């Protein structure tokens, strides 16, 4: 049993150990081990040339990582909090995402950008955002989110091994939660990065979710169970690409779907999921696909986040509505 944070740390350690081209870079990742201790001990063991404390400049972090990748390195960058990735947005969208295409495939930029994401830890402003929609809509990036230590470890290893740029989200409210982590890559529990995972089977309604909301959906499913309702929970894991066939198959079975994420629903990635399901499951849907998410407001002050973030009750309320349809 490892925490998510430890599982990620081990994936980074594995990367650094197995490939001399892997680098870890970011603000405070070295001596201090990162504000969430995710990079703890790495600089001590691999040196300051491979675990690099950078100046305080996000565009610089991603921009120099791109240059390093062109030189054959495989940098894993850390952005300290979700709300601080925007200074790097230009490097990510116009450079990182496009270089492979712009160069006609001649350049690969195997850069991973790790971002602690979402709320639930009572943080101050800019420290609780769920901004996956911006990146998923950006062609040329892979976007992954690890809801469990298992994925924190193995999906990050896959991200590091990928020749494509990967935005790797880590729900910070889950950093301290423990879970099993497979020992070897051929363990059947280790899934390919692009595959959605049914974390709980069910027959009445399919909950489609990711990141910080997987646990919430599992709790909702457990509660519904007591009321004789069988909820299926699917963790998307990969947000770009989305494993659409798996989602369609799941929803075709239950005929009812609720998409749950923490970002505002308006224009959020849930709208892609709902639109896609509404189209592809048109004949099998017995009720509209509902979306449960943040409201269309800036992430609020910490003492309001309980209202902002979807919780068990709001998920069950949507379940009630699709079932009552």
């Amino acid at each position: 049993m490892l925490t998510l944070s430890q599982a990620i740390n081990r994936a980074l350690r594995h990367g650094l150990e197995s490939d001399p081209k892997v680098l870890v870079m970011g603000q405070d990742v070295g001596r201090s081990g990162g504000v969430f201790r995710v990079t703890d001990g790495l600089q001590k063991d691999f040196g300051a040339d491979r675990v690099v404390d950078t100046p305080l400049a996000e565009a610089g972090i991603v921009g120099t990582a791109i240059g390093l990748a062109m030189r054959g390195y495989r940098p894993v960058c850390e952005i300290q909090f979700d709300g601080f990735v925007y200074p790097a947005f230009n490097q990510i969208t116009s450079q990182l995402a496009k270089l492979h295409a712009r160069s006609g495939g001649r350049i690969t930029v195997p850069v991973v950008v790790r971002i602690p994401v979402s709320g639930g830890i009572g943080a101050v402003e800019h420290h609780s955002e769920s901004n996956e929609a911006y990146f998923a809509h950006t062609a040329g990036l892979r976007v992954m989110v690890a809801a469990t230590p298992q994925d924190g470890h193995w999906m990050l290893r896959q991200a590091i091994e990928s020749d494509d740029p990967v935005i790797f989200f880590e729900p910070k409210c889950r950093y301290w939660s423990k879970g099993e982590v497979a020992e070897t890559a051929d363990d059947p529990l280790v899934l390919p990065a692009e595959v959605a995972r049914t974390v709980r089977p069910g027959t009445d309604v399919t909950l489609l979710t990711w990141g910080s909301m997987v646990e919430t959906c599992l709790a909702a499913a457990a509660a519904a169970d007591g009321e004789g309702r069988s909820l299926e929970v699917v963790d998307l894991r990969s947000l770009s690409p989305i494993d659409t066939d798996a989602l369609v198959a799941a929803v075709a079975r239950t005929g009812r779907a609720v998409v749950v994420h923490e970002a505002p629903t308006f224009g959020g990635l849930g709208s892609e999921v709902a639109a896609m399901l509404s189209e592809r499951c048109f004949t099998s849907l017995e009720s509209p696909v509902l979306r449960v998410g943040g409201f269309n407001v800036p992430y609020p002050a910490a003492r309001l986040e309980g209202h902002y973030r979807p919780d068990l009750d709001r998920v069950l309320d949507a379940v009630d509505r699709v079932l009552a349809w």
Partner: protein
Amino acid sequence: METFQLVSPEGVLADDPAAADVDGDLCRGLYRDMVLARRLDAEAYSLQRQGELGLWLQSWGQEAAQVGSIRAIRDTDWVFPSYRDHAAAMCRGIGPEELLAQWRGVRQSGWDPARHRFHLYTLVLAAQLPHAVGYAMGVQRDGADEVVMTYFGDGSSSEGEANEAFNWAVTMAAPVLFFCQNNGWAISTPTSAQYGAPLHRRAAGFGLATQLVDGNDVLAVRAATARAAAAVRAGEGPALIEAVTYRMAGHSTSDDPTRYRSGAELDHWATLDPLERLRRLLDDRGWATPGFVEELETEATELAAEVRRVCRAMPDPDADAMFAHTLAVETRSQAAERAGYAAYTASFVD
């Protein structure tokens, strides 16, 4: 560039024309500002430890840099702070409730910026710098006799936006005074890993009038800021002050500074404490009259009590507050969302 200093660590006042207006009243006032700020800071720290605040970033050690600078400009001048500038905020009349609200998590900002001519704290590093420059462009267009001062840290100076702001200010000859509190660290990153040339030198390269000042010497900071502000006010173009100081506490209440910096460094800076330094001068000159010292102690104790009281008294906000101010004019869909959530929560109440 030599570091400008007026009071030695031993509390000896230099024989410098810049010290000509130094007297007991002035020093007592500055000392009071610093003592009260430190008390509030310490109190907020322990409130965080008791779970009453979500987070606190201490100003401990940086009181002279903040008090000296803000006391040197006019009340009509505008300030764009960073997030650790509690001493400066207090000098602008911002009270404990207003200061703590954000860190308790009941609001995202505590005070009315216009009333105090003191903008909200900005947590996205360096983002306030272009705001200050833009505000100063407005001052320019208004032909107003105002200076805009903005605080930021050594680490923040690496952000692209900081450097865009430096360049922009010089190009537009905007009446802005950049004030860097170089406290040696950006969380765990020392300035040696932040930049290869001192910030004041970089700033000069941009064409800013620059001064390097002992940030733990409140009189030097005050004199340097007054000088720089006067030049900015006179239309001589923007300026930058680098005040060398030290963050005595961790970066925040979530940070453990022993992971990355030595006790010896801390001990060294403890000997340079800005309050003690001014206190030595006060004592030497006989300016710290017993009445003053006692009253100040009483005032600080009362402040501490008030800090605790107002902090604990802050109620959790209403869910509706979350919807209230997304836009100046609420849209139909937002009104619907707000009403929908109100109906939903009401459904739980029997």
